[in-house]
Each structure stands twice: as structure tokens, then as C-alpha cells.
């Protein structure tokens, strides 16, 4: 039986791999007559690329790309991407370039670049009332940066200066967040003390979010933006570069920059020449696997913690909820019913966001950094307790009425009746349903990423992004599969143990 499952799983993986290769090939062969130009960008990165109030993707970079396409006779495809997957998108040919306030510094060898067109610096934003005035004040504080962003690279990247490394060391924590919106929510709520980002973005965010925040004068680093193409794709890069210079010469570039309020940061120059320093260095497969696995181990602990704590709290809580649901006291049972229906009717991810950000939005409470983990556990527990409650309820209702009457005749108290007679029969009734939920929970732990809690899957995506390989995701997949295999095995044992009666 299990062997068959393993074989099916292996066949599935092989099919997926074959499909990936196939798409990669098709993408590669269409180089001849270019008709479309698809630009990958992070849709949450104003003013370079974002969604405006009409739902249109706009931004400085997209305007530039549009103009290039117009002049080249290409059809522009704006492709919003998950920033963590940008390399995969580029490699598979799903996008032709990354044009999105994309920092060259530190990535010189990873892509084929246009010449820099924006000079940007990394700065720190703090709450106005925080009393932080220079970078050294950030010592002992919690600082947020976007995953795989230039700010993160400035602190921890291979080319980070010793000064910045020491500064990052002095932080209480350097936290990675998925997008700037949650970074600012964290900053506002007090969960983090500073957010570091590109100056262009910083100016925009401060203008958009009012005067609650200020930017430190001191710069963390200076950096430049370019258009990134797949390493070796100089042909396309040269075409785009040529058109950009054309636009610079006739003033279109400057007017687009002005339109987006970026006149101060643009730096495109006809004198710069493109260079290609990109060269591949090979690391052995085994070494890479060991390195990646080592980096994922931390996430395993986090995922296990979410899993175990959620079970420890939600299994008993679910029983209380089930009692409330079955209570003869109507207001209580109606309230519990409402809670269950809300939990079951909305996504867990949304519930996690509400638990984490709710206290600040609703009551103005400044949440501490450690609340992030509590929020994960609270969110998961509240969610799973509702599901378990309904399972308990069905299990209790499946116990025949005659059992209760026998208890009554024999003089059992209500609690004896429940714990001695009903409970064991209920457990047997619900084991298959509980097993289903527990297996879902294993997979659901990955949803903790919604509030930037770094568990296994988040870490796998981060490592996948930094290593530009899908391997960490496969390792993560294997982890979840093995984890669930063990869970299924344990549940099977419990079921067997309870088969002594019918």
C-alpha cells in the first residue's frame, strides 16, 4: 500500500520536472522574432512598479519599459512576480527582464545589466517620536528589511561593508518582511523600530503615509538601479540599452523621471558602457545540498513548534468550544456558532493578519516583536479549535442515546457519563476526521509567512531566492511529506489501538 503511494509521488515529481523543462525549452526557442517584451516586477514597489487605485500596474520603470516597447514595436507584458521567485521566472523565460528598482550592487555577476539609470541609497525610516536620530541609535533595536532587498544585502550580503555588518550585529533583531506595507504596519504598531529601504521608496512612503515617520539623514549605503536580464542575454540587453540612450538624448527619459518625481535620483548617462563580468562558478551538488539543508534546519524547528503548540492548545479548546456550541443556554451556543462560522468562512491567512495587526489597529496597542510568534500560535489555535469543535460535536452526537440512558439508570454523574462513557466512544468516532485536520495543519504551518514568521516554507523561499535554485523548495516538500508520513503513521497506530472495541 505505502509503496504504491511512494511510487505515485515519485511519478508526480518526475512529471512536474519534465513539465518545467518543457516550458523552459519553448521559452528559449522563441528568441528569433521578438514581438512581446515581458517585464517582471514586484507590484508592491512604488513608485517603480505598483498597482494604482484603478487596479492598473504603473510606475516609473513600467513607463520606461512602455516607451522602449513603443519604439521597438514590441508588445509590453507587465508581469507582477513574487520577488522571491524572480530568478526562477527569468530562468524559465516567463519574463524577459527584471525592471523594478533593481539594485545592481552586489548582483553584478548574477545578471546581464543595462547601465545604471537610477542612483539610490539605502536609508532608515523610524517613528518620529522614537528618539532615534542616527544609525548608531539603532543598536539594540528591531530593524525590518524586505526579503532579499538591497537593504538586507547592505547589512548581510557578501559585499556588505564591515561598518554595516557591525551595525547589523548591534541590532536586537534584523527582521525580514515580505512587503513594505507590512513593514510599515509593524513600524506603526511598534513591533519594529526601523525599516530600511531605498531612498526613492522611502520618499514615496513618507509622502504617502504622512508625517508620522522620518528618515535618518545618515545613509546606510549608496547604490544604483539597472535593468536585469538573464545572464548572457546581451542581445536583448543591447537592444533595450540602445533605446534607453535614444530616450535620454531626446529628453523623454528626463520627462518620465520628472513625472514620477525621481528627477533627483536618475543617473542614466550616454557615456557609461555596459560591461559583462558575469561568469559562472560551480559548486558541487553535494556541497550545495548540505549548505541548503543546513540553512533550512532552523525553519524545521519553527514549523514543528507551530504544529505542536497549536495541537496542545486547540485540541482541549475545541472540546470547550464544542460544549459551548451544544449548550442549552441559547446566547452562548449562538455566539459559539458565530465564531465557528467566521473561522470556517474566512482564510486562515486573513485570521493571522487580524490577530497580529488587530490589537494595534483596534486598540492602538503597540505590539512587541515577540508578539509575532504568539500571534501565530493564537491564530492557529483559534482556527483549529473551531474545526476540532465541529468534529467533537459530530463525534459526541454519534454516541447512541441508549448509552446516556444506561448511564442514567446506573447513576453516573454528568461528568462520569462524559469522561467514562461518551468521551472514549467519541474519540473512536472522530479519529479519521482528526487525522485529516492534523495533516492539514502540517501543511498550514507554512501560512505563518503571512505575518512574516520565518518557518520552514518561508525560509525555503528565501534560500531559493538567494541561491536561485528550486532545490530548497523540493527539500521543503520532502520535509512536509515525511512529516505527514509520520503523522499518518501515528494516527493509524491510534486507530488500531482503538480497534479493540466496536
Amino acid at each position: 500500500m505505502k509503496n504504491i503511494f511512494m511510487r505515485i509521488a515519485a511519478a508526480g515529481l518526475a512529471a512536474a520536472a519534465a513539465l518545467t523543462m518543457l516550458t523552459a525549452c519553448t521559452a528559449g526557442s522563441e528568441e528569433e522574432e521578438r514581438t512581446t517584451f515581458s517585464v517582471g516586477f514586484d507590484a508592491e514597489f512604488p513608485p517603480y512598479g505598483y498597482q494604482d487605485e484603478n487596479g492598473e500596474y504603473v510606475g516609473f520603470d513600467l513607463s520606461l519599459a512602455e516607451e522602449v516597447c513603443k519604439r521597438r514595436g514590441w508588445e509590453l507584458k507587465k508581469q507582477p512576480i513574487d520577488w522571491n521567485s524572480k530568478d526562477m521566472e527569468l530562468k524559465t523565460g516567463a519574463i524577459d527582464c527584471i525592471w523594478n528598482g533593481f539594485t545592481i550592487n552586489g548582483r553584478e555577476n548574477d545578471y546581464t545589466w543595462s547601465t545604471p539609470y537610477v542612483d539610490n541609497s539605502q536609508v532608515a525610516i523610524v517613528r518620529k517620536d522614537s528618539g532615534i536620530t542616527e544609525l548608531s541609535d539603532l543598536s539594540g533595536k528591531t530593524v525590518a528589511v524586505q526579503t532579499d532587498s538591497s537593504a538586507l544585502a547592505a547589512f548581510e550580503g557578501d559585499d556588505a561593508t564591515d561598518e554595516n555588518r557591525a551595525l547589523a550585529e548591534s541590532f536586537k533583531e534584523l527582521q525580514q518582511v515580505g512587503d513594505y506595507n507590512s513593514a510599515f504596519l509593524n513600524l506603526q504598531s511598534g513591533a519594529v523600530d526601523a525599516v530600511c529601504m531605498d531612498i526613492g521608496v522611502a520618499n514615496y512612503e513618507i509622502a504617502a503615509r504622512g508625517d508620522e515617520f522620518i528618515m535618518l539623514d545618515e545613509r546606510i549605503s549608496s547604490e544604483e538601479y539597472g535593468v536585469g536580464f538573464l545572464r548572457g542575454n546581451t542581445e536583448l540587453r543591447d537592444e533595450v540599452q540602445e533605446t534607453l540612450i535614444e530616450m535620454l538624448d531626446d529628453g523623454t527619459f528626463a520627462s518620465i523621471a520628472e513625472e514620477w518625481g525621481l528627477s533627483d535620483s536618475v543617473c542614466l548617462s550616454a557615456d557609461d558602457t555596459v560591461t559583462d563580468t558575469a561568469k559562472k562558478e560551480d559548486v558541487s551538488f553535494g556541497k550545495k545540498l548540505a549548505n541548503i539543508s543546513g540553512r533550512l534546519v532552523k525553519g524545521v524547528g519553527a514549523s514543528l513548534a507551530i504544529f505542536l503548540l497549536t495541537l496542545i492548545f486547540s485540541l482541549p479548546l475545541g472540546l470547550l468550544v464544542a460544549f459551548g456550541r451544544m449548550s442549552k443556554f441559547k446566547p452562548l451556543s449562538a455566539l459559539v456558532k458565530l465564531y465557528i462560522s467566521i473561522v470556517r468562512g474566512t482564510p486562515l491567512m486573513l485570521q493571522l493578519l487580524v490577530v497580529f495587526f488587530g490589537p494595534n489597529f483596534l486598540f492602538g496597542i503597540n505590539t512587541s516583536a515577540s508578539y509575532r510568534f504568539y500571534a501565530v500560535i493564537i491564530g492557529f489555535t483559534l482556527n483549529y479549535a473551531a474545526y476540532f469543535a465541529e468534529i467533537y460535536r459530530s463525534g459526541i452526537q454519534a454516541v447512541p442515546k441508549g448509552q446516556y440512558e444506561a448511564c442514567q439508570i446506573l447513576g453516573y454523574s454528568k461528568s462520569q457519563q462524559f469522561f467514562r462513557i461518551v468521551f472514549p466512544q467519541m474519540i473512536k468516532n472522530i479519529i479519521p476526521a482528526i487525522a485529516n485536520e492534523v495533516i492539514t495543519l502540517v501543511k498550514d504551518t507554512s501560512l505563518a509567512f503571512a505575518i512574516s514568521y520565518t518557518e520552514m516554507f518561508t525560509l525555503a523561499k528565501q534560500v531559493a531566492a538567494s541561491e536561485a535554485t528550486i532545490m530548497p523548495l523540493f527539500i521543503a516538500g520532502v520535509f512536509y511529506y515525511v512529516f505527514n508520513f509520520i503523522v499518518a503513521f501515528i494516527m493509524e497506530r491510534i486507530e488500531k489501538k482503538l480497534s479493540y472495541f466496536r
Partner: protein
Amino acid sequence: MELLEVKNLRKSFGDLQVLKDISMNVGEGQVVSILGPSGSGKSTLLRCISMLETADGGSIVYCGKTGFTEKDGTAVYADKAELKEIKSYFSLVFQNFNLFPHYSVIKNITDAPIHVMKRSKDEVMKEAEVLLKKMGLADKGNYYPYQLSGGQQQRVAIARALAMKPKMLFFDEPTSALDPELTAEILKVLKELAAEKMTMLIVTHEIDFARSVSDHVVFMDGGVIVEQGKPQDVIDNPSNDRTRAFLKKLEQ
């Protein structure tokens, strides 16, 4: 001495009046059988007496203690402590046994004496062994209910009831769920109990059994007692047409 005195008992489910003015007694050491067509209210009567249903009116006295009496048109029950005492006077054996599936035979029998009556485990275990032997199940103590035949399960249920040392035992069609051979097993056990002067109130369709074992027979129809008396009178010489019709139907 009367162990059970039912007077003017009434019970309705919604608009349907199931018991209309039932009065009957069970004397110490007596076996009383209740006969009657389906839907006549026999089970409801037994369930009111066993306090699984709440009566609407009338009164029942158990071993001299009043379970409930009628006040201002409703049944008023005794207080909690008194009801607990009264409930220890009787036990009920169900048509479909209602054994606890997750307990072994011996645990089914001993669980309530140990945890409800708080008696010593050793003593209860010894008594349970004796009861099992008496029921012809000496070797089945560690079996689970699903491993037993219906007749064996019903004998366990009777042993479970006896282990509580009740002053009287109620049975609601204890053989209706069983095949004829298994029915004979149970009737044999009941006869033995009758010979030991166990006070019993039995709802049954087994006319021959009722005739040979009962001291008193109650015939019910449509929620009233149509006639009651010695089995020779009620079963062999019924004075009421409805009783006659019922008995005739059974014979066919």
C-alpha cells in the same frame, strides 16, 4: 409490602396523550408482566417509572418513598438527594442491551458499583465473578460486547443491573431483539430470578412465559390499563374484548 405504587399516572408527548390515568402496584417478590399491542404505551410507562421520562401527573411511590406527586396539575419530583436514593432501588434492562462497547464484560458489570456506589474493587470483582457464573458467562469476563451473541449480551446487561443490588428490576421487552433460541436463554435466567423472589416488572410479548412466571398481569391498550389480575384470569379468561382480540392475534 408494595415496592412500587403507581397512581393516576399521566404522560403526553405534545398533543398525543400516551398514558391516561395508569394505576398499578408491584408487591415485594412479585413478578408483574405488562402485555399490550404496539404503541399502547408500555415502554413509556416503564420509562416514566424508571425516570427516563418526566411524568405529567399522578404519583409513584418506590419502597415507601415518594418519587413524585401531583400538585396543581403537574408532577412535582422529590429533591435531588432523595431521587438519588430512589434510583438506587431499581434498575432497568433495555431491549437492545445498551452495554458500554469500550468496556469488557467484567468492566461493564463492575464500573458503576466501583465508581458510582464507591464500593471496594475487590469485593465488587468477586461478586461480578459470581454473577457471571450464574449467567453462564464465567469464561467471558474479558470479552468485549461486540464479541458476544445477543443472548450473551443481554445476560451481561442483566448481570450489570443485578450488580447494583436493586430492590426491583424492570425489563422492557428483554427478548424482542433476539432469535427464538436466545430468547429461551434469557427467559430461563428470568425464571431463575423469579424463583429467587427477585421483584420484577417485565414488558413482554411472551405469553407463555407471562402465564407461567407472573404473579400479576397488566394488559394495556391505548394508554389505559384495560384489565389486570392473576394470569389465569387475564390471559386464560379475559373479560375484555380488546384483551381477547390481542391474545387471539398473538396465537396466530
